[in-house]
């Protein structure tokens, strides 16, 4: 499959009064045609900054220090502002967590969708209106003719998020970034939006980059998963591999510390001790080492390299998989790395 977007060694820092906050510290990922990938991590791990940078939305005091963002062969890290504007909302678009913040409260939603369309396409008002109806039907509005005349406050949370999806898709983008699209919604509405986004995959060619902290949502949508911690990708691979044979201790923590509906009843939960590191002065070695049950001496001083497992695409950056440690920790790896065991 064709690679649409390839991000290499992306490094982003925020130069604040307190010092340099190293939000993204060398991230690599790629996305291919028609697939859905997920970037998973907790708040402050740099997942939002990563996609904002890719979209060209990084604002002061943030700066790209290093890395390339190859979108169909063109390096967006070096692209001009005009070029980025031409891409934003057109070939790359984005939906956000809280739709109400991003919708104009004084403008009918139909007009807002049309505005996004007219920004990048030459069309008459009637043509634009027809396109709005078409896209609103695509995102399953029960009566688009009536709904397009509504103001945002007249719509429910789920409907507003559908408007955001419609706006993002109106120009047929190549890549859609969805930043926590369901976090602000109730579970029954979340299920509707997940269902909608999955059903859209069969109708349009857009690739989706899902950003979330919810492993449950990931399991429902993504083909490939990137797990991010303290500005770095610590593990990535096919969703099946990451869920069934997670390799990085942080992924173990994430997967095993969430309450599961299909787990046996009342009882203590597994947890990750401590809190994420301060990115003003990130640790020298592995950023997860201070919270890791299996940390060794080397973890505190040296950054772990990427180790590859089985199928070429499953990688984790952890010293447990170095030749020396592998034998000593064989039982840990065996036990923790098998989600069904």
């Amino acid at each position, binding site marked *: 499959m064709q690679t649409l977007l390839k991000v290499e060694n992306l490094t982003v820092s925020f130069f604040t009064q307190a010092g340099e906050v190293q939000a993204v510290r060398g991230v690599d990922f790629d996305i291919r045609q028609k697939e859905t990938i997920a970037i998973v991590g907790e708040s402050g791990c740099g997942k939002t900054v990563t996609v904002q940078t890719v979209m060209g939305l990084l604002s002061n005091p943030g700066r790209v220090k290093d890395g390339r963002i190859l979108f169909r062969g063109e390096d967006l890290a070096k692209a001009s502002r005009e070029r980025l504007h031409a891409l934003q909302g057109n070939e790359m678009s984005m939906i956000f967590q809280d739709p109400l913040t991003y919708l104009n409260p004084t403008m009918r939603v139909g007009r807002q969708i049309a505005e996004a369309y007219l920004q990048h396409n030459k069309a008459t008002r009637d043509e634009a209106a027809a396109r709005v109806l078409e896209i609103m039907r695509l995102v399953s509005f029960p009566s688009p003719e009536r709904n397009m005349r509504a103001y945002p406050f007249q719509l429910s949370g789920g409907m507003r998020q559908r408007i955001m999806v419609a706006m993002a898709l109106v120009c047929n983008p190549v890549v859609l970034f969805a930043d926590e699209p369901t976090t602000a919604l109730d*579970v*029954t509405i979340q299920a509707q939006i997940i269902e909608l986004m999955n059903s859209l995959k069969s109708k349009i060619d857009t690739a989706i980059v899902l950003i979330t902290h*919810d*492993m449950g949502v990931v*399991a429902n949508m993504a083909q490939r998963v990137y797990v991010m911690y303290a500005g770095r990708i610590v593990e990535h691979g096919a969703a099946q591999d990451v869920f069934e044979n997670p390799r990085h201790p942080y992924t173990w923590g994430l997967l095993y*510390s969430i309450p599961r*509906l299909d787990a046996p*009843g*009342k009882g203590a*939960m597994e947890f990750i001790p401590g809190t994420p590191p301060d990115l003003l002065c990130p640790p020298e070695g592995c950023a997860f080492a201070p919270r890791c049950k299996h940390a060794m001496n080397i973890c505190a001083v040296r950054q772990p390299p990427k180790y590859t497992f089985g199928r070429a695409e499953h990688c984790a950056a952890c010293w447990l998989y170095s030749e020396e440690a592998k034998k000593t920790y064989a039982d840990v790896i065996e036990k923790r790395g098998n989600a069904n065991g």
Partner: protein
Amino acid sequence: MADQVLFELKSVSKHFQVKNAGVLKAVNGVSLTIYKGETLGLVGESGCGKTTLGHTMVKLYKNDGGMITYKGRDIWDFNRRQNMNYHKNVQIIYQDPYASLNPLHVVRQSIAEGLEIHKLYKGKKRTERVMELLRMVGLNQEHANRFPHEFSGGQRQRIGIARALAVEPEIIICDEPVSALDVSIQAQIVNLIMRLQREIGLSYLFITHDLSLVKQISDRIAVMYLGAIVELAPAQSLYEHHYHPYTSALLSAIPIPDPEVEKKRKRIMLSGDVPNPINLGGGCSFRSRCPKAAKRCELECPQLKEITPGHFAACHFAE
């Protein structure tokens, strides 16, 4: 579970008059019992009235209808002294601890405030008690003289818990205590809440929207929809058999973090959103989204009935 009843709610209602719109029945005829030493999970989506119910129980609102008794006595019949005692025994923890801590007070002051009001632990003993509380919630002595902004979200929630614990309550109403926290921190706080229950025999009313979380910690679970309890059952029983279509839909809507399991699951999709709670007519409030809705549901509001011992559901079709 000891059989001593702490709270008894009998068809409690709280209605709000909304300007130019009508009446919002936030809580509409809720009956519940909370026993000593148990955790009762109260689950529902936003706007279902779960927080209003919690606030009514700590007397932040006065219920318009029904009766709330605490250890057999109506909570609105207390004299001044009994009322103080009630407020000491019934504590509440909120979702956003930062919003409920005074930013100008150091943690020591915030925790000691309750002790001061209730005249517990004088002088040096009080300082000792604050230190003990900090230890109990997994913080240390150095934290005592810091301000709320110096803490992370998880630590602030620990302070919120210490504050509630300070006056030795019998029950804590936990209103979404972990929803604002990251997943890795959530488990820490949930474990803390459960450990404290084992150690000092607290009871909890645990209000949340997260059905998988509530399963981890509750003895019994009540599911709420538009102001009313639609299903009430022992935790295990609820997950094995659910009789109300809303509970079934809610359970099936929760994603399980395992693609293999997810592929095999059948999902019940609810159409539409929660209807506007202002001026709801008679009949079953769930009928507009219910796959089973029939003529009867429009005319008659279903009451909670016992389906199996201890397991109640409010649906005409539950059996």
